[in-house]
C-alpha cells in the first residue's frame, strides 16, 4: 500500500475519532432524555423462586447471591435517589439473595433496615423486615446480634415493646451475647418506649457498628432525640415565663433576660431553637438536625 494512503488513513482516524466522539456526547445526552419515556422500565423480576434460581446457578449460588445483593443495594439506592416510594421489588430481591446464600448476614442486616425504614427512606414494611430477620436467625442460630436487630425493629419501627424485650432477652442467652442485651430487655420491659431507652438503644447501635452509614444514621437519631428533649424542656420554661408575665416569650433570649435560663439553648448542630407564639419549641430551618416530632419553623 502506498505510504500516502497509509498516512491519510492515520490522519483521518486521529482527527475523525475525537471529533466523532465529541459529536456523540451531546447526542447521547439527548437520547438519554428521550429514551426514558420509551423504555419506562417497569420493575421486574423474572425469576422469583430462590430455590429454582439456586438450581439454575449450577453451584455458583454464592456468587449469584452476591450479584443479587448488589442488585438489591442498587435498586434501593436508585429508588432513594429518584425519590420513588415504590420499593415493591426489595423484599423479593432480598429473599432471592438470602435463599441463594443463607449466611450472607449483611443482606439480612441491611435488608431489614431498608425494608423497615418509613418512606421515603425505605419501604416502610417492618413486618417484612421481621420476617427477614427471623429467617436470618433460623439460618444462623448462633448469632446473637440478629436478635438485637429483631428487637430493634420491634422497638423502634413497630413500637411492640413486649416483643422487643423478648427478642433482646432471647438474644442475651446466645453464646457471646453482650451484657447490654439483658439491660436492654429489662429497660424495655420496664419503661417501654421512653426517650431514655431509645437513647440507650441508639447509643448501642452507634458504638457497636462498624459501618459508617449505620453509624451516621444512629448519630442522627441521637441528635434528634437530644433536640426533642431540649424542646420539651424549653416549652416547660416557656410555660413558667407565661405564668410570670401572662404571655409566652417571643424567643429563647427573652427567657435568658428574664433569668429563667442561664443562656440561649442550642440544638446538637449549634443552632438556636425557635419559639412560636403558642410557646412551642421548633427546630431552626437552617439546622441539619431532623426530627419526626419537631418541625422546622422560621423565627418570627
Amino acid at each position, binding site marked *: *500500500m502506498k505510504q500516502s*494512503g*497509509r498516512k491519510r*488513513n*492515520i490522519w*483521518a*482516524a*486521529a482527527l*475523525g*475519532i475525537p471529533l*466523532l*466522539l465529541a*459529536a*456523540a*456526547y451531546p*447526542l*447521547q445526552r*439527548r*437520547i438519554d432524555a*428521550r*429514551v426514558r*419515556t*420509551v*423504555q*419506562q*422500565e*417497569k420493575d421486574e423480576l423474572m425469576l422469583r423462586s430462590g430455590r429454582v434460581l439456586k438450581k439454575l446457578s449450577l453451584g455458583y449460588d454464592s456468587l449469584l447471591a452476591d450479584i443479587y445483593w448488589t442488585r438489591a*443495594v*442498587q435498586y434501593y*439506592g*436508585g429508588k432513594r*435517589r429518584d425519590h420513588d416510594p415504590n420499593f415493591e421489588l426489595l423484599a423479593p430481591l432480598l429473599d432471592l439473595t438470602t435463599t441463594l446464600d443463607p449466611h450472607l448476614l449483611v443482606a439480612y442486616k441491611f435488608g431489614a433496615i431498608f425494608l423497615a425504614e418509613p418512606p421515603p427512606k425505605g419501604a416502610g414494611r417492618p413486618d417484612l423486615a421481621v420476617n427477614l430477620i427471623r429467617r436470618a436467625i433460623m439460618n444462623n442460630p448462633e448469632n446473637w446480634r440478629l436478635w438485637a436487630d429483631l428487637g430493634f425493629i420491634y422497638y423502634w419501627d413497630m413500637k411492640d415493646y413486649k416483643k422487643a424485650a423478648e427478642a433482646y432477652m432471647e438474644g442475651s442467652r446466645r453464646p457471646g451475647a453482650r451484657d447490654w442485651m439483658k439491660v436492654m430487655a429489662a429497660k424495655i420491659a420496664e419503661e417501654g418506649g421512653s426517650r431514655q431507652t431509645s437513647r440507650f438503644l441508639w447509643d448501642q447501635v452507634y458504638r457497636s457498628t462498624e459501618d459508617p452509614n449505620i453509624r451516621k444514621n444512629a448519630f442522627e437519631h441521637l441528635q434528634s432525640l437530644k433536640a426533642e428533649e431540649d424542646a420539651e424542656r424549653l416549652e416547660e420554661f416557656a410555660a413558667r415565663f407565661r405564668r410570670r408575665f401572662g404571655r409566652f416569650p417571643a424567643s429563647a433570649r427573652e427567657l435568658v433576660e428574664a433569668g429563667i435560663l442561664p443562656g440561649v439553648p442550642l440544638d446538637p448542630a449549634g443552632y438556636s431553637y425557635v419559639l412560636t407564639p403558642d410557646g412551642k419549641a421548633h427546630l431552626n430551618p437552617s439546622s441539619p438536625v431532623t426530627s419526626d416530632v419537631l418541625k422546622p419553623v422560621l423565627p418570627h
Partner: protein
Amino acid sequence: MTWVVALNTFREAVRDRVLYNLIFFALLMIAAAVLVGQISIGIEHLVIVNLGLTAISIFGLVMAIFIGVGLVYKEIDKRTLYALLARPLRRRQFLVGKYAGLLLTLAVNTALMTLGLAVALFYVSRTFVRSDLSILVAVYFILLKLALVTALALLFSCFSTPMLSTVFTLGLYLAGTFSTDIRSFGEVTESPALGAVTKFLYYLLPNFNNFNAIAAAAYGRQIPLILVAQNTAYAAIYITLVLLAAAAIFSNRDLK
C-alpha cells in the same frame, strides 16, 4: 469495487449456509405460537413479540460477532486477500466492502425473521393493530445495534485472531449494554472521583442500551420519530468512528 466485495461477502455467507438459522427461528416461532396459547392466558401477543424480537437480536448478534471476527482474518489466512489487493482496490475499500456485505446478510436475515414474527403474531392475534408498528421500529433498532457490533468485530479482526476478537467484541458489547448501570453505580457511591470515571466511561462506550425497544414494542408503546433519528445518527457516528480506526490499523498492517 467496494460493492463487488460486499456482494461477494453476502454470497459467501449464503453459500456457508448462514441463513439456516432461519429454520431454527421459524421452528421457535411456531412452537411459541402453538404452545403459549395452551399454557398461558392473555400474554400470547406479549410473549410472541418478546420472544421474536429477542431471538432476532440474539441470532443477529451471534452472526455479527462470529462472522464479523473472521471477515479479515479469513482472507489473510487463506491468502485470498493478496489477489484482491493486487487489483485496483484500496484496503479501506476492502474493509468497507466486507462490512457492507455482512450488513447486507444481517439485513436480509433480520427481514426474513421479522416476516416470520409477523406471521406468528397474526396466528395468535388474528389481526394487526397500529401499535404493532413499534415492532418494526424495534427491529430497526436491533439492526442498528447489529451494524455497530459488526463494525466492532471488524475492527478487532484487523489485528487479532478470531477467538480474541470474539472475546473483545462480546466484552465491549456487554460493557456497552450495562453502561447505564456503570454510570448509576458511580452516582450511588457518591464518590466524585468514581462518579467522574463512570460518567466518562458511559459516554465513551458504545451505548447499546439506546437500541433497546423490545419492551416498548411488546407493550405497544409508541417510539418517537425523533428518537429513531437520534439513534440512527448515534449509530452512524459510532460506526464511522470504529471503521476509521479499523482502516487506520489495517492500512498499517504488514501483510507479508
